[in-house]
Every structure is written in C-alpha cells, then in structure tokens.
C-alpha cells in the first residue's frame, strides 16, 4: 500500500538546529515527498530563506516547490520587545506543492488536502 507520510516535528527536534540546518532538514524531507507539521514553525526570516532555497531547487520535472501554511505570530508589544520577549512562530504545515493543497485558511483554521498520486 502506498501513502504519503505526514510527520509531526516537535519543537525539541528543531530548536537545536541553526536556521540553515532547519531549512536544509525541511527541504530534504520535502524533496523525499514527506509532509511536515512543525509544532513551532519558522521565523519570518527563516520562511523567506526557505522560499529562496526552494526557488533555487525548483526543477520542472521533479520539484515544483512547497506548500506552506502557518498562523500569524501575535504582535509583540514594546514592553515585550524591551524585555526581549518575542512571540515564537506558530504551528506550520509544509509539504511538496504537488502533494499538499490548501483548501481553506483563515485566522483560526487551516484546512489542507493530501494528494496521493
């Protein structure tokens, strides 16, 4: 029986990695066809780095890119900034664009569909 793997990645799994290592790990898994649900997602800067790396790897016959959906971070107040408190990234789902499709997204709900070709 064939299927698509959906891997739930804990915060502990990624927090010991540098941004580059996280992105490399995510892209390697996605290129293998895995779908990842990150307990704590990527920072906005890491997200743009991931998009950049993804674009450099797009190959029309093998890899068309990623589907990524996460919730907006809560806004950090000036007091929290002074205290160095930054709202962490929130739960995020990432997968190959030809296997993961977003059906609906709003501020409280993300619905996706896994396509098993």
């Amino acid at each position, binding site marked *: 029986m064939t299927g698509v793997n959906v891997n739930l990645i804990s915060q502990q799994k990624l927090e010991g990695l540098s941004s580059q290592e996280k992105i490399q790990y995510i892209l390697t898994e996605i290129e293998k066809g895995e779908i990842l649900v990150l307990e704590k997602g990527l*920072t*906005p*800067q890491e*997200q*743009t780095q991931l*998009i*950049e790396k*993804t*674009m*450099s790897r*797009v190959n*029309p016959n093998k890899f*068309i*890119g*990623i*589907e*990524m*959906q*996460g*919730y*907006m*971070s809560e*806004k950090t107040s000036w007091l929290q900034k002074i205290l160095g408190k930054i709202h962490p990234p929130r739960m995020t789902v990432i997968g190959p*664009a*030809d296997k993961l499709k977003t059906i609906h*997204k*709003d*501020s409280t709900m993300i619905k996706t569909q896994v396509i098993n070709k």
Partner: protein
Amino acid sequence: MGIFQKIKNISLAKKLRSIFGKKHVKIGIYGPPNVGKTTLANRIVRDWSGDTLGPASEIPHETRRAKTKENITVNDGGSSLTVDIIDTPGIATKIDYHDFLSYGLSEKKARRRAKEATEGVIEAIRWLENVDGVILLMDCTQNPFTQVNITIMGNLEARELPVVIAANKIDLDQSSPATLKSAFPQHDVIPISALTGYNIDMLYSTMVQRFHKRKRRAA
C-alpha cells in the same frame, strides 16, 4: 515672522528631519503574483513623472526582474516625498510551468518563464534588504490569509520597515476590503483600484505620511 525666527525654524525643521525622517526613500511594491503590482507601479510613475515602468499581464509572473524608477516626487498637497519605486516580481512558494500552458504559452516558453520566475522570487526577497518601506499589495477579491502575505508581513515587522497595505481590485464586484482590514487590523489598509485610479490619492497621502519617517533595524 522675523528673519531670525525663520532661520531658526528652518534649522529646527532640518534637525527634526535628521532625527525623524528622510525625504528620499526606496519603496518596494511587494505581493503575490497577479495582484497588480506593475499596474500600481505604472500608475504611480505615470501620475508623478508621465513615464511607465513595464508591461502588466494576466499571465502570472509577467515581472520576473525587479524594475526601478528613481526620483518620483509624490505630493499630498502639503508635504512631499521623493521615492525610488521598485516593482518587484511576485513572491510565490511554488512555480509549475504547466500553469502557464493554460494561457496559451508553448511548453518551451512556459518552461523558460518558470525558470525566470524562480529567479525573480529570489531577487524580490533579496530586495527586502535594500528598501526603506513597502507597499504590500493584496488582491481584495482573494483570501488575505495566504502564507506569502503572512511571510512578507512578518519580515517587515521583524525589520521594523514601514508598510502600507493596498487592497487592490476594489473595482471588482467580489472585492472585500473589509476582510483584508480585519486580517491586518494593526496596519494601514487603503482600498484602491490601480487600474481605474480609484482612491489612489488616499494611497499617496498615506505614503507621504507613513514613509516620511524612516525607521529601520537590521534583521
């Protein structure tokens, strides 16, 4: 007002500007593909210099290299701001050449367009390092909660770059600027039609006010 008072006021104005603002800024127009970035860039450039920046198209990723028009002076009636407008390629997380075939492109042209589009996305992201402010353009007939919108917004907030959200395509029946405003309540959201020019003066006024103050922290 006496001459000494005038000199004192000018000097004070200069000092305040050196602390709070800048009169010449680089403004990037950002957003996903096909939201009307080039149409807006052309309107701004045409309104204030009589020129245009580049062709717009219904085929996604028409703009695949960033285009800049320098020294556009935008005036809101009281204040003015000189801007370099950067029309950036649309940011996307996936690019499939098959999507272009439905617009009648040959496979060869579709593949080339896809390749250039990937390079355009990278260029647009890299331009974020060099802009002083951003007009984030969204299509108000579409769901605003896309990851591209969230990622761009997150980056702008992290870099503390001033941003104005322009809710484009207000001229279309299915537009819903209220949904967009509710998605980004902490930001200026200006409903516009880049195509017809509807409410464009409000955008210019907001640009002058918002981008005059330049506050930026390295990301």
